[in-house]
């Protein structure tokens, strides 16, 4: 019926002939929009009227003391946890609350967990190959071949994450920092629009941290990146805009200098944590 209608409507090009635009519509504003989101677990309000918007191509850091709701917020975005109230939109077209985890992942939201989980028995190259956006049903996977196009894409990501020389090594022998980069590389293979990165530099050496900062700032612009991090030095080195979470809501938002001079922030978080970190 709709096909017939589109054939008889004369005022525009047939719908099915029009090129498929990127499914994520960011023409009308932010790539991620969370409004009045609340979640409670057994009466405990993990997220309480959270409002957050991330612009397309932005690099945003989210900080906050333990229990501020950072991880729960990521769970909501990726569809792992359903909020009790509020709305979450990806672009202006996709209501994330009506989608399941695999659909959200294939829409272009990639998440890096705190603890790096790579496939240790497989090589770095193979790890990236598996993570690549592709037809992931059984028979296409069984008959899949590595074409030049795929190889180029994997090599490009290998260069980006700086593991090109280790491509044939099993991922199990990588250092902690290298595993984190491989994980980020695996996310990049899925060509995400939004990257959620949970504590990327925990347990890293100074040099690895610098390298990670370069990597993440290099990614911003091409995709939006949300980084949750405890390490203030690291946040200061990459952040253009920082959001401070406290007790499930946004406490302050702005540049690092703005938020770190905000008395409310100093009171709940920065003062105490800076002493610990120092």
């Amino acid at each position, binding site marked *: 019926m709709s096909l017939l209608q589109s054939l008889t409507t004369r005022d525009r090009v047939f719908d099915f002939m029009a090129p498929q635009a990127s499914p994520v519509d960011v023409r009308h504003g932010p790539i991620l929009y969370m409004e009045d989101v609340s979640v409670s677990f057994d009466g405990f309000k993990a997220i309480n009227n959270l409002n957050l918007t991330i612009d397309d191509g932005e690099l945003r850091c989210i900080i906050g003391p333990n229990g501020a709701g950072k991880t729960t917020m990521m769970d909501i975005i990726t569809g792992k946890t359903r909020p009790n109230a509020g709305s979450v939109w990806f672009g202006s077209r996709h209501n994330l609350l009506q989608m399941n*985890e*695999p659909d959200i*992942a*294939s829409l272009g939201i990639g*998440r890096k967990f705190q603890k790096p*989980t*790579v*496939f*240790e*028995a*497989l*090589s770095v*190259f*193979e790890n990236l*190959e*598996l*993570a690549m956006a592709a037809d*992931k*049903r*059984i028979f296409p*996977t*069984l*008959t*899949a*071949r*590595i*074409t030049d196009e795929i190889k180029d894409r994997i090599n490009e990501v290998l260069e980006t994450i700086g593991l090109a020389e280790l491509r*044939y*090594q*099993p991922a199990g022998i990588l250092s902690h920092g290298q595993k984190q980069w491989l994980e980020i590389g*695996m996310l990049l293979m*899925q060509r995400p629009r939004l990257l959620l990165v949970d504590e990327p530099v925990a347990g890293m050496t100074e040099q690895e941290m610098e390298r990670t900062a370069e990597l993440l700032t290099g990614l911003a612009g091409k995709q939006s990146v949300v980084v949750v991090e405890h390490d203030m030095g690291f946040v200061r080195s990459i952040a253009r805009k920082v959001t401070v979470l406290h007790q499930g809501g946004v406490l302050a938002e702005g540049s690092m200098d703005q938020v770190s001079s905000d008395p409310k922030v100093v009171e709940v978080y920065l003062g105490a944590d800076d002493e610990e970190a120092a």
Partner: protein
Amino acid sequence: MSSTISLMTQSSSRQFWLTRPFGERATQIFLGVLFAALLLVTVLHLALPQGHPLHVNAYTVNLFGKYLSYALLAVAVDLVWGYLGILSLGHGAFFAIGGYAMGMYLMRQIGDRGTYGDPVLPDFMVFLNWDSLPWYWLGFDMAWFAFAMVLLAPGLLALVFGFLAFRSRVTGVYLSIITQALTFALMLAFFRNEMGFGGNNGLTDFRELLGYNLRSNDTRLGLFIATGVALALGYILCRAIVTSKLGRVCVATRDAEARTRFIGYRVERFQLFVFVVSAMLAGLAGALYVPQVGIINPSEFSPIFSIEIVLWVALGGRATLYGAVIGAILVNYAKTIFTGVMPDAWLFALGAMFVLVTVLLPKGVAGLLLHLKRRKKSATLPKEATA
């Protein structure tokens, strides 16, 4: 070692998936050794006169054929255990069902030559005063139907069982336990006369397969060669699966299931696919086993047998496929010798073998082979450097 494996998948990753194993060194060696062994046994059996010290008699050919069908079964178990991390303690059930499908065909081939001379009903049904064939025996007089059932019946059971198990994300120890329960339940069911599978005695007294007399030496040799070819084909199929991208998804599932799910693979469907393929191979192994031993009864369903299969794979070396073949042949050869010399000591010997291998060779015999190969390599390298 791992890096060389990756290099191999690199160079061959453009090929058609089913022919990919032929480019692998390990597969070439395996197929070479297997076919050389088949040829050698055939020549020694046919060309040398009886009584010659190197003559292989019909009994031994038959025994080797039995080992080869066990080897195919072990390959099937290694596919799910070694690469997918699913420790199935119930693969004997698929083996037995394939065997029963073949046994039903062989029973129908007996025709009116049975003790009671009934043209249609097998002896045990006449004995139970049944007057017609149960519906599930229909069609088994046709070879094509029976051979299709050899693959389809275990495949269907694996499909239903695996669908329920993997959909509910039952893995690890729990899956092992319910596979064990599955084979035990089937054993109890097949023991019942009312099931119509010959009860305790099972199916036996076979005469002909496709018109060939099962008691003739030539048929035994033919069955031995057919089993060897089936093992080669099964091995190539499994190898093609594990060297494909799907194989890498399996290894990823084995090591980090949640992560694999998260990057977008429907893990339960991959598990189900590989489980069904494995069950069908086990069924094929059972179907080749039955005409060579001349009987199929519910003891093939016994939980102990399924555990023994896992022991073969562990002894030979997990996740290599050829290790499973080595393990199956070694253990069963030892079993033949031991049960001949000291029948009571066999279980102790099996236990001792298992303990020794676990302690001394944690990666099994295949691991030892790889280790020796690497030592040889590192021993030749310095020489080249000094030269």
